[in-house]
């Protein structure tokens, strides 16, 4: 019935129709150097030396592409197959070093070196998959960590200095057609093509039956095995594809830097894709690439020894200098932990989740009542909602689980967040100035802090202890920095008093909770 209403389209048109957002992003990335050149009056493809705004942004984007490929390959193992890899640097470094050694030291041709590099990556992934056959879970993670570390230590050895260059690394000359100094736009397009190919490959793989088996292995390996799948073979597939892609990222890196340095084998090359896929969204297809872009570009803007922060829109005439260089690593780590604890499926997962909830809310409290009043709206809305009017009308008849006021009482934080979001976006759009929107958001969050803290305490009364101990540490540290013993004592006393008061309040709250009548009384009010 629904099928008859939809016109059949040409497969190509249908593909574009289904993936319009991806095509839009691709179009933007393809035209990006020219757009930047247009905006900044620089050249996208300067004839002699690659200087100027456009070339600079091209190199930043190339870096992002490399990281995106690495993160996507990482996600294939961790997010989709459930193999914890702490040694992705081994693949990446293999790509870099094989290229640099073969072309730089042995003068092998570029294309054959590329083949050998990919082959090396595949070989390593073969060793890994044999390991994955016997070694499971944490043990596999440690195996990969040790494996990558062996290569890292070997690259630094002086006895292989003639080969790897030891701590100094190697330089090599990149062929002209892909040279990022002489022909940057060409390399930009090449790297972009690599990202697109990787993306399509991963997407194809994960939408294929084999991809479903990989996800099944992640969720429950024993069940996948009892269903009759050869788990070893599928794991090998995932590790091989992942390894080859990571090696490809390494090759691109070697071209980009025209050399090899020991840091490409270090733990950082493993942690980076881990953080990127986690922040983007583990187990989602666009997540890792998005995470790579987010982190690399925000790093470009934020990680500076002197970043001037202009808070004029918040506080009148207030500018300050921040040394964000020293905060960057810490902030990244903190973001990582917050994501693992609170948003384990990353930006993409959280957006999907929130959007689903918002849609459900909109349907229950806005769409359904309106449609109940004016049934003809259901017919008009069909092209936007994609559901026939009969279905919409039938769904609209369902009663809401609770009234809007009950909802607001039950989820006060959601209400506050919604109001903040609406006010911020609304004012921002009205005045057509993003700073106004941001300042409204900050203002609303700031004034709602006491309410949020109280709600938090009602939910987790034991947080009172934390506050007491924290005050005991902080106050003397701020007041008497020079006298250690004195501040320890004052801190002790503050802690004792605070925790004492805290226990009293805690007992109060729990007593109220334990007494069912008071609970109903609270609920009634």
């Amino acid at each position, binding site marked *: 019935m629904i099928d008859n209403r939809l016109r059949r389209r040409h497969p190509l048109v249908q593909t574009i129709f289904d993936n319009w957002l991806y095509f839009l992003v691709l179009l933007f990335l393809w035209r990006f150097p020219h757009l930047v050149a247009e905006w900044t009056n620089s050249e996208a493809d300067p004839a002699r030396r690659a200087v100027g705004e456009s070339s600079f942004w091209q190199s930043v984007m190339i870096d992002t592409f490399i990281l995106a490929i690495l993160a996507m390959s990482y996600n294939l193992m*961790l997010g989709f197959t*459930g193999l*914890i890899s*702490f040694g992705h640097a081994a693949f990446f470094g293999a790509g870099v070093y094989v290229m640099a050694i073969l072309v730089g030291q042995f003068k092998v041709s570029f294309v054959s070196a590329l083949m050998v590099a990919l082959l090396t990556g595949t070989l390593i992934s073969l060793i890994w998959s044999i*390991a994955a056959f*016997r*070694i*499971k879970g*944490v*043990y596999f*993670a*440690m*195996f990969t*960590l*040790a*494996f990558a*570390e*062996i290569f890292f*230590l*070997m690259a*630094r*050895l*002086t*006895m292989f200095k003639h080969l790897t260059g030891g701590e100094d690394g190697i330089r090599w000359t990149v062929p002209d057609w892909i040279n990022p100094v002489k022909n940057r736009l060409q390399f930009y397009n090449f790297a972009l093509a690599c990202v697109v190919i990787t993306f399509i490959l991963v997407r194809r793989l994960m939408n294929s039956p084999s991809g479903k088996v990989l996800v099944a292995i992640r969720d429950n390996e024993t069940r996948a095995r009892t269903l009759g799948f050869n788990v070893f073979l599928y794991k090998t597939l995932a590790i091989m594809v992942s390894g080859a892609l990571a090696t490809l990222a390494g090759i691109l890196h070697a071209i980009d830097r025209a050399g090899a340095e020991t840091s490409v084998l270090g*733990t950082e090359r493993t*942690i980076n894709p*881990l*953080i990127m896929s*986690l922040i983007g969204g583990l187990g989602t297809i666009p997540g890792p690439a998005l995470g790579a872009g987010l982190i690399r570009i925000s790093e470009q803007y934020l990680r500076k020894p002197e970043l001037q922060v202009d808070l004029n829109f918040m506080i009148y005439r207030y500018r300050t200098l921040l040394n964000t260089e*020293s*905060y960057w*690593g*810490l902030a*990244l*780590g*903190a973001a*990582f*932990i917050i994501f*693992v*604890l609170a948003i*384990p499926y990353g930006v993409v997962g959280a957006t999907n989740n929130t959007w689903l909830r918002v849609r459900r809310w909109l349907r229950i409290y806005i769409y359904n009542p309106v449609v109940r009043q004016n049934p003809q709206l259901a017919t008009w809305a069909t092209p936007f909602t994609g559901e026939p009017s009969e279905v919409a009308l039938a769904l609209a008849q369902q009663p809401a689980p609770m009234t809007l006021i009950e909802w607001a009482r039950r989820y006060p934080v959601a209400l506050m967040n919604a109001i903040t979001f609406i006010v911020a976006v609304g004012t921002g759009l009205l005045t057509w100035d993003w700073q106004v929107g941001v300042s409204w958001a900050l203002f609303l969050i700031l004034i709602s802090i006491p309410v949020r803290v109280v709600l938090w305490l009602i939910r987790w009364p034991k947080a009172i202890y934390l506050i007491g101990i924290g005050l005991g540490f902080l106050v003397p540290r701020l007041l008497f920095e020079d*006298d*250690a*013993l*004195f501040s320890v*004592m*004052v801190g*002790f*006393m503050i802690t004792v008093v605070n925790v004492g008061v805290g226990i009293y309040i805690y*007992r109060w709250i729990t*007593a109220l909770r334990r*007494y*069912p*009548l*008071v609970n109903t*009384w609270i609920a009634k009010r």
Partner: protein
Amino acid sequence: MNALNLKKISSQTLWGGIAVGFTILLMIAVLLDSQGNIKLFSQVVAGGLYQGMLIFMVAAGLSIVFGLMDVLNFAQGSLLMVGAYVGFDVLSRMSASDKTNAFLLTLHVMVIGPILVLILWELTARLILPRVMKTVEIEHSSLFGKIQVVALTGVPLGFVVGSVWAKDFSGESDVVRVIFAVVVVLIALLSVSRNNILFGLRWLSNEGGIRFRRGMALLFNEEASPSDHVDYDPQFKQFDLNKEWLPLAFGVVVTVLVALVLNNTEVLMLRFGVAAIAAILAGSIAGIVMEIVFIRPTYVRPFFQIVLTFGLALVIREGIEYRYDIDPKGTLGGYLPEFLQGTFPPAYLRDLFPADFETTILNYWIFMIIMGLLMMIGVQLLLMRTRIGIIIRAGVQDSEMVEALGVNVRLVFTGVFALGAAIAAMGGIISAGFLNIDTTMGDLFLLQAIAVVIIGGLGSYAGTSLTAIVIGITRSVAAYFSRRQFNTDAPAPIVVLLLLCLVLYVKPSGLFGKEH
């Protein structure tokens, strides 16, 4: 540990024999290669032993924590680094003025006093009193109660004694110190006589609570809940002053004696001791915070748990970099007391050895080996002989059943995590006396410790201890041969990691681990 199954015994003795034989073979190889040069040989062996002990300090925590909670804590190496940096911080801040010395002395008595009181108390109560008094049964109060009383009486006593002896009882902030001491003594007295005072307080609070709730019920015209009743167990006494005044008096006297003795010791040693205490405290606090805030919410998601500990290692390193910047801090060698500097044998022990006896072993190596051995034996005793050890060993097998028997397993988890962290932090400050302090030291130790824990079999403490020594000597021998061959000892860690990969391929659950 005490697996007595016949099949298991054969497997364990087999692999244990192979490990020991491997070590002996390595040592023989060194002996042959150096043509019987005892000086070189002893250096290689002692070097291997101290490396093994340092690795053990990280591996011990990893092993126990994994056995009990199935958490492989990748941040254990960072805890070692935290210990080293905190020790460095404390040492470099303390200037050698009279005032600081008095503070140090006070702090030491505050810590050592209670420990001695506790030990003496245990000894007298368990060994001497039963023989002297010939009573059939002597009631002990619980260990926790004892620690409470001992800490609360010993700390202020040590404080006062230290302050008086150090003649540092003048100055502005001393008023606060006196108030502090008085407050703590009051709490201690309260604790000692808790049967009278605390009982009264508890009765008051319970009575008040019931009255309040009844009042609320009356207010809303309802009947009071029957669950409102006072519950306390009058038979369960924490401490009885009448019975145990004798050991307590012993302890007090000893505390004063300790203060007297410490008053004449070298200031450097006091400082190093304070730094060690601070490092251990910092490490265990970091461990507790880690367990409660980060590990506990993720027990249901083991997959993310591993990733999280890996990220925690990064955060700790970045935090340390932010706090102390990235430059290496050098070793703590300059802060060491005199008897830990120089080579073995030290000057005051020269007479015990032949006149021409000299080695290239540093005193500090021997110190590290002794500390490591103490730690090894101490943890082994804790595991095998105490009630907490029984709970830990039972929890390794089935923590749910332990909880069903009435043990607060979560608290035990946190405690074990803190213990592992404290050992790692102690390893940190001990290694910092000899190795450069920088932000990568944690990662280096972590990898070696992981190798040890895996080869020894995850969750097997005895296996970890043995393997730590084996790996230490393997590393040292590998360094020896590569120094002769390539004139560098950089390949030594590679050998260990290769060994790890090899063992994982051959026996995925380690040499002494249980097959899953």
